């Protein structure tokens, strides 16, 4: 049987993974959609860009990112969520290397390694040290 703290940890890991993946993929597709696009000074050119497929996919993923992050914050500490989701920086470096053929210097790999160490340290602490209200209100 899973203890309540174990259940919370699993739920936290699943939602944190969604937060990170939605952020990294959202930025990736947004960047891909906007690359080489000349945005004019009018608001219309920005609105037009929103309706190109890659940009729209990027924005949809960033909306998922924001909502899943809010869900995570409904029980997890801010001082837990902020450093743990920084693993997204590392995934962006790996994606840049694997899919865009970017050169990654030794110094940047060292930075990525430090972030991994930081995330490992913070994720070893309990996700929540402040008790939120038990119920999420109606519809529960």
């Amino acid at each position, binding site marked *: 049987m899973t203890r309540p703290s174990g259940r919370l940890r699993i739920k936290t890991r699943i939602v944190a993974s969604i937060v990170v993946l939605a952020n990294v993929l959202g930025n990736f597709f947004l960047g891909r959609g906007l690359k080489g696009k000349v945005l004019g000074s009018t608001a219309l050119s920005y609105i037009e860009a929103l309706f190109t497929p890659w940009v729209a996919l990027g924005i949809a993923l960033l909306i998922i990112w924001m909502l899943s992050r809010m869900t995570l914050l409904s029980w997890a500490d*801010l001082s837990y969520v902020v450093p743990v989701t920084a693993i997204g920086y590392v995934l962006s470096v790996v994606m840049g290397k694997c899919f865009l053929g970017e050169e990654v210097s030794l110094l940047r790999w060292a*930075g990525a390694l*430090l972030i991994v160490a930081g*995330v490992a340290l913070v994720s070893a602490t309990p996700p929540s040290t*402040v008790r939120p209200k038990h119920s*999420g209100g109606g*519809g529960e």
Partner: protein
Amino acid sequence: MKWALVAIIVTATSAGELLQTAGMKRHGEIHDFRPGALRGVLARLARNWFVAVSVVLMAVSFFAFMKLLSVADLSFAVPATAASYVVETALAKYLLGEQVSGKRWAGAACVVCGVALLAL
């Protein structure tokens, strides 16, 4: 100009995330992930002023970051604004009453240094 923008970004990001966390804690833990229940959560959050103000502050931070990128290099913008990790950890401890252990401080410090190296 650059440092004024960094100050705006760090302040708006930290205040926005602090308010968002306070708003979500007031709402309570989300247990039910069925679409109908999540629609109810969204409707309640739209009336939660902590969350509403946090979204405005994050928009301020986003546009200030775009402006910063137009006047400074990404290698300056990313590590300078990573200061918000430390500010948020401190604010979470003193204003939200979170228990920030040595491990959490060490983790946040590693992340800030890592982000700074990534931007080099």
